[in-house]
């Protein structure tokens, strides 16, 4: 049997971000199977699929579709070869009906006029054929997310797609919708479709896929039959264990509980709960590392604590004060510091100077403000102190922040946030995209802050980072804390399992594959 898709030696280097997103990857999908492609964020799975769909051009490598070598330089080519892709962000026109969206670009017309009846009939037949019932005349803007996804799938199928790529299709769905989607995908393969299912949730893999390929760090780690593997094995492949370095640190000396979140629920941008009834505590002088695959509510959690995102339910306490109802400035005044995930757009203002970046959240502080006017000399002195203390290379207070390297930019962020001895430090992926030297620097700085008595809440998707910094480790999955360990009692394997939605009971009974039942 020829493979539906055969990718050989695919390599892709992104010069702009200096990332080797894919190095010499082989990947093949058999006709009629559901093939799960798993890996952590940044493992290269999206890049690989974007190459297949013609959104990204590979530097090297060959693609064979149904045995024939093809060149795919544009999504149109991909569609021509029978490849369709449903993206995480749907490409639908909200004011159009389902039929109009599905038929967009291939509308039936007569004497130049559209034929809405015929159009709806075509869609109705298509929906019947694949067993995906929809109301062709419903407006897409009124549909639930799950229904919109169904429209996207039908849109691909209408274009005679034989190979359907679903990019993290469950990330936006409710649990019931996930179940439905799994049924739909299984149904499609019975009708001869081939499906590539991108995910990082291993439970879903066991439910939906025939085979699974695991990627890590831009490399293909391996492909297995799902029937012959289990969640612990996949987790091990996914997480890997290439430890880079460990930071020297003294044992923690935890004091009082400084920060506490109780039964916290936070909604995501789209109004779906991203953090669900989550409770945690951080003590003075300790680092609590929250491990998890990104997109499991970490950013919403941090933003809610910082005051950027509203809290739907639950309460936050810093020392003995409630943080509820306080705005960002008031929380910062009470000693909350925040190293954000995205330093380019959130942590810094690329269009201005280093000193103005350093000033943020201090512009009304009496040290820098007299009668509403900024004391420029004080601001400059503060900026210089950051430059000196953290040895920000080739920087001046007046110079543009944009000329600095990523590591030096992060030093400015860290310097700004840690100045003034904060009580609680929120560090959301503080070393993302940094070089080794800068990572080490950020780690040392966080440990110093801890030793001076700050409570540090660290979010990271890198297990290495979690292990080298944390005194205590919590695992977040699907908006909830699913496990908590003292740092010296946890293993990477345990964390990886929990991060992927598995449970520790499986570890003991890991011999056979009954993962679905073992879930919480």
């Amino acid at each position, binding site marked *: 049997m020829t493979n539906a898709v055969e990718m050989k030696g695919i390599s892709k280097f992104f010069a702009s971000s200096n990332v080797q997103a894919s190095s010499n990857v082989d990947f093949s999908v058999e006709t009629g199977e559901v093939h799960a492609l798993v890996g952590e964020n940044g493992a290269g799975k999206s890049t690989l699929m974007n190459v297949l769909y013609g959104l990204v051009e590979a530097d090297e490598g060959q693609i064979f579709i149904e045995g024939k070598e093809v060149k795919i330089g544009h*999504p*149109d080519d991909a*569609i021509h070869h029978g490849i369709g892709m449903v993206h995480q*962000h749907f*490409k*639908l*026109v*909200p*004011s*159009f009906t389902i039929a*109009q*969206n599905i038929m*967009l*670009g*291939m*509308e039936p*017309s007569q004497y*130049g*006029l*559209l034929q809405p009846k015929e159009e709806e009939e075509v869609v109705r037949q298509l929906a019947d054929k694949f067993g995906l019932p929809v109301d062709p005349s419903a407006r897409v803007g009124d549909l639930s997310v799950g229904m919109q996804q169904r429209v996207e799938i039908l*849109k691909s199928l209408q274009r005679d797609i034989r190979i359907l790529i679903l990019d993290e299709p469950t990330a936006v769905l409710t649990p019931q919708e996930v179940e439905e989607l799994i049924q739909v995908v299984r149904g499609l393969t019975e009708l001869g479709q081939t499906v590539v299912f991108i995910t990082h949730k291993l439970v879903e893999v066991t439910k939906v896929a025939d085979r699974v390929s695991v990627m890590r760090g831009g490399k293909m780690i391996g492909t297995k039959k799902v029937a012959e593997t289990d969640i612990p094995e996949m987790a091990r492949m996914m997480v890997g264990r290439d430890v880079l370095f460990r930071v020297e640190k003294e044992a923690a000396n935890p004091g009082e509980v400084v920060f506490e979140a109780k039964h916290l*629920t936070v*909604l995501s941008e789209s*109004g*779906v*709960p991203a953090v669900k*009834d989550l409770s945690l505590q951080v003590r003075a002088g300790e680092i609590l590392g929250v491990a998890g695959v990104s997109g499991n509510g970490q950013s919403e959690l941090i933003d809610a604590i910082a005051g950027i995102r509203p809290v*739907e*339910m639950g309460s936050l306490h810093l020392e003995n004060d409630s943080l509820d109802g306080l705005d960002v400035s008031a929380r910062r005044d009470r000693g909350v510091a925040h190293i954000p995930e995205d330093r380019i757009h959130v942590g810094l203002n690329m269009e201005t100077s280093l000193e103005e970046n350093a000033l943020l959240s201090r512009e009304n502080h009496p040290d820098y403000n007299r009668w509403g006017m900024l004391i420029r000399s004080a601001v400059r002195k503060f900026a210089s102190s950051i430059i000196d203390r953290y040895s920000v290379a080739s920087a001046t207070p007046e110079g543009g922040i944009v000329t600095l390297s990523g590591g030096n930019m992060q030093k400015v962020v860290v310097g700004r946030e840690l100045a003034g001895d904060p009580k609680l430090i929120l560090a959301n992926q503080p070393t993302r995209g940094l070089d080794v030297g800068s990572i080490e620097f950020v780690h040392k700085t966080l440990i110093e802050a801890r030793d001076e008595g700050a409570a540090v809440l660290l979010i990271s998707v890198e297990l290495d980072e979690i292990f080298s910094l944390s005194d205590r480790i919590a695992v977040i999955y699907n908006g909830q804390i699913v496990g908590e360990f003292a740092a010296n009692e946890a293993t990477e394997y345990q964390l990886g399992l929990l991060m992927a939605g598995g449970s520790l009971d499986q570890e003991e009974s890991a011999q056979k594959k009954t993962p679905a039942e073992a879930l919480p």
Partner: protein
Amino acid sequence: MEDILGLLTPALLNSSIRLATPIILAALGGAICNRAGVLNLALEGKMLLGAFLGILGAFFFANTYMGVLVAVMAGGLLGAFFAFVYLKYDVNLIILAIAINLLILELTVYMMRILLGNVGTWSDPSIQKLPDIEIPIIQDIPVFGDIVSGYNIIVYLSWFLAIAGYVVLFHTKFGRHIRAVGENQDAAEAVGINSRRIQLFALVISGALAALGGAFLSIGHLTLFTRNMSNGRGWIGVSAALFGFSHPIGVFLAGLFFGFADAFAVRLQNVTDLPPSLIQVLPHFATLFALVLVALREKLSLYMAKRRSSAALRSGSEAATAD
């Protein structure tokens, strides 16, 4: 009060329709651009260019219809230039429109003065006004005939174009692609629609339409060109397009509303001491009101969605604690 009611005559409606024509044409152009996702604030300049070149064309070719054709082509070309600069150099559309409006305002007078002598207003006895067309049979129907018949070709064209615009936008493939590009460019591109081509087309058409409105001013309504002849009608067209929700029929009615307000204000001035500008301002207030309503509607639906999800969450958590 009786005086005011006495103003509502077929003659008033006639002049409403005449005053509305350039606004309707510009607004139709604006509506197509809105639908294609390119805010066109250069309608004023395009209309003025049409007025200027329309009368020049009528003069040089000694044929008024040629003047109309010249105006339409020039407007289309200006639209194409606008689109080229926008799509090629990624120029801010608003700044570009400001520059184009100013350029046409000044350049038309400059050219008028060096080509036609140092005058502020230009006309030539040889130029014929576009003839009024009486529609057989219909013109004989009392009242209705007076209202519907007896306009020049551009007025009838504007009616036809409103209907054509509606058919094209909502009942042809091309129109649907325009709306798709305007509403979600990614969605359109994903199915292979060339959004740049669509936006180029919208800008060209809107230029031609606004210029046709300009030609109506200089050779349809009057036979002269004067500095800043469009006098804000292009901007009113922008408002009318918004007030009509960028729907060709809605835009047509909005244009009529603006035209009616103008005509009524003029009549009112002749009969009473009531301020005409207070009548003319009404459609602008209505536009502002419409903008607020649209925004409120979106705000409300967002709020309702949030509330629904939040209510579902609460009931869910109560059920969970009850377990």
